[in-house]
């Protein structure tokens, strides 16, 4: 009961109804049932555990616990700032996690935790574009180091082609995969679903392993190039496969096989295509003009 004798003494306010006896005009809000279940749950020993093994439950809880996420419309600056809310050590962890696949550790669940970022994918793709162009150029230069008649030319047109190839792989393949998963989700009730940004994030980080591989390709030994391609393909392919396995495992086996093989195949295509286009084999001449010139000079001398 509210005692008005000593205002500084701690008073127990039990029910709003009791207060109304003192002042009937006061507005009171009664919060009835909301905190009762909470107290009962806590009393029963049930504690929300975010490090649950079950990924679905932890996802639900993190959404509840993170509170209201205000979503700004996509044409404002604040919408994109949400995807750059990341620290240096997060980026490092994500890059290392994408290079070292661990069976059972899903990249999206372990590293992204519902906070995909755009910083990593964008700068990894940009670095890869320039690494490809520079390494390709440098390997051509090393190839023709001894020959005096070869005129060295830095081929800047290749930067544009590399950029188009890599950025379209990093954006259109996730778009297609997301659409495909959405379509399958409508047919089969799947508990695990990934948002578009998360898929873009996985694909962006999975390209990180190719940067050291591309730098290794400068060394003009074919066996070394093929070794590094195979290693990079295995690592990035397995990261992708292990990430998307939970999203498709409840599906029809043929659909699973089709989606997984499409993921792996596109990865292989990108790697081998880049190697073939930017890095020529040590025996053959890279560009048509000097080789044509060499053949023209050789033909008259042979006859």
């Amino acid at each position, binding site marked *: 009961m509210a005692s008005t004798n000593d205002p500084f003494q701690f008073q127990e306010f039990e029910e709003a109804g009791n207060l109304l006896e003192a002042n009937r005009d006061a507005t009171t809000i009664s919060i009835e049932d909301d905190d009762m279940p909470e107290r009962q749950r806590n009393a029963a020993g049930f504690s929300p555990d975010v490090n649950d093994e079950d990924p679905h439950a932890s996802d639900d809880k993190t959404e509840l616990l993170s509170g209201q996420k205000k979503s700004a419309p996509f044409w404002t600056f604040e919408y994109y700032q949400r*995807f750059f809310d990341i620290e*240096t050590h997060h980026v490092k962890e994500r890059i290392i996690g994408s290079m070292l696949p661990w069976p059972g550790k899903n990249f999206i669940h372990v590293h992204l935790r519902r906070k995909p970022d755009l910083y990593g994918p964008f700068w990894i793709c940009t670095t890869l574009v320039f690494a490809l162009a520079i390494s390709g*150029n440098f390997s051509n230069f090393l190839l023709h180091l001894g020959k005096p008649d070869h005129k060295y030319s830095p081929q800047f047109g290749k930067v544009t082609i590399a950029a188009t190839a890599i950025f379209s792989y990093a954006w259109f393949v996730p778009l297609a995969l997301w659409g495909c998963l959405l379509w399958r989700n409508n047919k089969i009730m799947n508990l695990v679903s990934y948002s578009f940004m998360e898929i873009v994030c996985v694909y962006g980080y999975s390209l990180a392993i190719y940067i050291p591989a591309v730098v290794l390709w400068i060394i003009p030994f074919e066996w070394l190039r093929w070794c590094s391609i195979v290693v990079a393909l295995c690592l990035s392919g397995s990261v992708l496969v292990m990430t998307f396995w939970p999203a498709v495992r409840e599906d029809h086996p043929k659909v699973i096989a089709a989606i997984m093989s499409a993921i792996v195949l596109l990865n292989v295509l990108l790697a081998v295509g880049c190697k073939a286009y930017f890095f020529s084999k040590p025996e053959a001449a890279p560009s048509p003009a000097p080789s044509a010139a060499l053949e023209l000079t050789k033909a008259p001398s042979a006859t």
Partner: protein
Amino acid sequence: MADEANRQFAGLSDVSISEDIPVEGDISVPMGSSSSNRQRGEEDEFSTLDEPVKETILRDLRAVGSKFIHVLYPKRSSVLLRDWDLWGPLLLCVTLALLLQGGAADSEDQGGPQFAEVFVIVWFGSIIITLNSKLLGGTISFFQSLCVLGYCIMPLTAAMAVCRIVLVGGSGTVSFIVRLVVVTASFGWSTFASTAFLADNQPPGRKSLVVYPVFLFYFVIGWMVLTFSPSQ
């Protein structure tokens, strides 16, 4: 008559103008900030419209020159940030693009960078780096960042001029090594100078996230400078 007049403005009479709010004053043009560059002290001018053109141009040139000196000796000062201008970056970009012309591959279609390509790389790259640092929560403004990134290209432009002079002497291994050393030194200088200005405005824990794109940007420009080969 008075009644009609009163009725016309009946609404206005309800508006009470408090006596504390002064409704008088005078409109005057504020005095222009006295800059130390002003030579004619006796002419107290309100605006810069009446000064001779030479004065205007010289003031801008002096501002640009002082910023060049601040890039040469980068210390944590706010001159570049406070009075940003884009004249210096434009001048440097045009100089760099002109020096990169006349290369071996101008006649071929696959060759050295065209004038427009250098421009696109420098300005587009600066804009992307600025957007990146703003998205990461930096407090620097858009044009201030463009100004800093543009001015810090100066060591690389100087390296390009040195490379062209070295290439006049010959393009063997010795000249390549000299060029490599010069370009590496100036690339390091550019990156260091720009991070001295830019990194302070970032929240801690994200500094290397902001520095890395700057590093990549100057690396690409340094590669363009290094791989320039003259036509024979």
